[in-house]
């Protein structure tokens, strides 16, 4: 199902793409089954708390420049938004240059669930507009607003006329999907409707879609050599950035989970080519990406020269770090794309990957071109990448059994608690970077050197593990891995 910007709603990843949160097997089987459209989701009888599509929609929207999100929800649904804006106090920007993300709650209460909350929504949006004068407003739906079934779309149109600014619905009810990345799609859909413009002349610009533009100083010179100016559709992106992005020649994203829907929308609406299959991480990924991009803009030779130059620049650093990493085992627990990107990166660094947990898996993305496979499938086909893998939506007790079984030298993770589990076994964690910072040979060198240091002195974790009394029964400890999956009829 291609992106449909005419609708205000966006179906969940499960429905749209056949994405799954339950699987165990090998990467090869997973990727092949996904490609043949015969991938089955496995459900669980026991699960632990996961994460929220709603919060991942509103944090992305609120990160944009000049915007404001009205959260049509009980007050606590925006309770975690401080996590996504607190760092602004420490950014070395001049005083007054930054403001916190604006998420304003309607604060739905019990009586609103009975009598409706639309009048409150109108009032909140008006007060929020008066206080902040944003250039646009997004109204996010929630579990509660969805269950009571309110017509928020009509209110958006009314308010847009009244306030004289775009007021866009973000269909972000958390209970719609077990995959928190569905919230990224709700963000991408809403921002595409609000900010993308009709295609005009192509300009020599290239779009990067991701969480953050941190690391752009390392990537801009590479793109400049290809004659392309980098536009970051990330937190802090302006309305004008999106307008300019509509005229770019191409787009790539940090990963399939966060970026693919917006990239596909740019392709569908504006004809901007989306490079989906080869993400530019590690030497292998970078070369493939640059070959694709260079070929597309008619500068393949130049692109490969840039790759050679970058490779030479970081070769010694990477080779030195590889001596520490050689033969080590690294367990992975990461998002749908990065689980397998890091599997390839670690292999490139001479590290064995006994198992990778992906927090979900997308057998395809929204790119209308069905010939463009997802990145994991490409690695299986092109590089013969194959590892033991499982898919769980941050199911910590499943991941715990796997870490215990494989006894890795370290784990590669980012958020979602796997680091706490690893430390209870005395296993150190490496907090993975993503996006522009990880790109190319510089990213690989950064990974190699910091990872080598991360595993160079394990005394802290060893001692934590000695004193930690894990609160799990012998029965649980004796269970085989993947034992929470329901027996399907």
């Amino acid at each position: 199902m291609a992106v449909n910007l005419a609708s205000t709603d966006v179906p969940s990843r499960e429905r749209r793409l056949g994405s799954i949160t339950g699987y165990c097997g090998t990467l090869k089987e997973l990727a092949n089954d996904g490609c043949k459209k015969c991938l089955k989701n496995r459900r669980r009888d026991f699960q632990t708390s996961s994460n929220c599509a709603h919060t991942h929609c509103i944090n992305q929207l609120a990160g944009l420049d000049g915007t404001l999100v009205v959260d049509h929800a009980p007050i606590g649904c925006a309770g975690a938004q401080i996590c996504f804006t607190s760092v602004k106090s420490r950014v070395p920007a001049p005083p007054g240059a930054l403001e916190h993300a604006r998420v304003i709650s309607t604060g739905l209460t019990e009586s609103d669930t009975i009598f409706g909350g639309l009048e409150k929504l109108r009032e909140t949006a008006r007060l929020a507009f008066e206080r902040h004068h944003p250039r646009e407003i997004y109204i996010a739906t929630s579990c509660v607003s969805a269950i009571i079934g309110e017509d928020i779309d009509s209110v958006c149109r009314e308010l847009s006329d009244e306030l004289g600014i775009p007021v866009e619905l973000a269909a972000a009810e958390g209970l719609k999907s077990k995959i928190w990345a569905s919230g990224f799609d709700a963000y991408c859909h809403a921002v595409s409707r609000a900010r993308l413009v009709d295609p005009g002349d192509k300009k020599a610009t290239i779009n990067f879609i991701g969480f953050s533009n941190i690391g752009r100083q390392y990537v801009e010179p590479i793109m400049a050599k290809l004659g392309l100016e980098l536009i970051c559709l990330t937190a802090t992106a302006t309305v004008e950035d999106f307008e300019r992005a509509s005229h770019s020649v191409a787009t790539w994203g940090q990963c399939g989970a966060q970026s693919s829907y917006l990239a596909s929308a740019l392709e569908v609406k504006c004809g901007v080519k989306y490079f989906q299959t080869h993400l530019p991480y590690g030497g292998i990924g970078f070369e493939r990406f640059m070959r694709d991009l260079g070929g597309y803009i008619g500068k393949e030779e130049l692109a490969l020269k840039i790759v050679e130059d970058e490779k030479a620049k970081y070769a010694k650093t990477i080779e030195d770090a590889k001596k520490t990493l050689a033969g080590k085992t690294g367990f992975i627990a990461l998002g749908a794309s990065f689980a397998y990107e890091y599997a390839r990166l670690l292999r490139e660094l001479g590290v064995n990957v006994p198992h990778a947990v992906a927090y979900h898996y997308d057998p395809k993305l929204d790119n209308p071109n069905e010939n463009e496979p997802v990145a994991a499938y490409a690695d299986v086909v092109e590089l013969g990448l194959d590892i033991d893998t499982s898919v769980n939506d941050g199911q910590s007790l499943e991941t715990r059994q796997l870490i215990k079984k494989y006894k890795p030298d370290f784990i590669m993770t980012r958020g979602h608690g796997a680091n706490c589990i690893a430390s209870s076994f005395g296993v150190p964690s490496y907090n993975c970077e993503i996006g522009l910072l990880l790109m190319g040979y510089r990213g690989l060198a950064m990974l190699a050197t910091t990872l080598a240091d991360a595993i160079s002195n394990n005394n802290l974790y060893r001692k934590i593990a000695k004193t930690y009394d894990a609160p799990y029964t012998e029965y649980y400890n004796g269970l085989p891995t993947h034992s929470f999956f329901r027996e399907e009829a």
Partner: protein
Amino acid sequence: MACISEQHRLSCAVGGIYTVLAIEKFLPILHTGPGCEVNAAGALTIVNGAQTPITYIDTSLPCTDFCEEDIVFGGNERLRKLVDEALKYFKADLAIIVDGCAAEIVGDDIGEVAESFEDADIPTLHASLPGFKGNNLWGHSQILSAIIDQYLQPSSEKIKGLANVFGIVPYYDTFWETTLERLEELLSRLGLTPNIIYGIGKGKAAIDKIPQAEFNLVIGPWLDLDIAKKLENKFGAPYFHYPVLPTGASETSDFIRAIVEYAGLDKANAESYIAAREKRFFHKLQRLSNTLIGGIMYPKRFVINASAGAAVSIARFLIRDAGLIPHRIYIPEDVPEEHQARIEQLIREPVYDTKDIIDYDIKFTDDGGLCESEIKNEDFSLLHVNIFGTTWDELLAKNKGLPYVAISPPSGDYFVVGKTFFGYDGGLEFIRDLQNDSIRKFLGSGAVANVE
């Protein structure tokens, strides 16, 4: 409740599970959406002193991950299966099933599910925590009420000097762990046997002792008063409400005298302790006098945008011991109206020289952004103020070039291990934080640097 609320300082009622998580080996089992726990965690743990719970990692809690399909098929059976499995997997002394908005609206019955585990090896309680009914403070109260109503039994024996300690909401109060450690130490020194239920080494044994207490101490302006009244009704133990968690010398000494008087403890012992600690407190400030009096020093006025507990503690300390004066006070904690006049009185009570001349507002709200919206355009270039609040306010302080100290949740992702503003040393800790931020903000006219 206002129709505009931003810069959220509170989580939803599901945040009440952090009260369960503060009691060692008490396990919350969630019948909520997949992300309700994470949303509650944001302002209570991750960006509130970078805390991780003590027994169970909060990302590993059993949860039905309630989604659309459960609305269609009903969640009760899935919940029953989940509880059944969870009790086999987790070493726990007690479990509490909680639910959130979606399960409540569709009418799933967690009470019925909990009752079906009557014969389980551990007590299995239930507490409804829908976010549309209340915030994490309401959730905290629901959890303690569930333990009292569904688990605790009256005791015929009262233990002389045993006092349950309430009023501090774990995790929400960023400094709870160290505050309770120091409070326990102080009360023990005065001759009481404090029964603190949160933190390492407490757990079920402490919970089981609650009905045996001679009295309940509620420390702080309003939280847990409902719990103390409930305990009084159920177990007949009176409660002593001391409305200020004391910071600094004068407040701590007052607290000591009050608790000694109430509990009939050794006054001479208390007075000699007070004398020694007050001398030490002001000695340490006197040693800073070269800077404290006439050097580059923090402004005299302060804005507070914080919980009622923190606002009362810090305002009273600053006025009484540090020579500061209030400029504006915001309390974005959605404090029930019945408590507001008393809290205002606690802040306005301390005496200072210009009290009758310089007036200021105290505002109760559930809108964390009210403070910023009102003072954003105020000109502080001539007369500086300090801003004491949460990490939301840190950026406001930075933008206006004003000193800032985190006193209230969410206090940021800074480590708070071993930190508290409670007691004599807590006052010194506060002065240290304030001065250290001030000298980062104000260079003074002697600065040998080009600041253009």
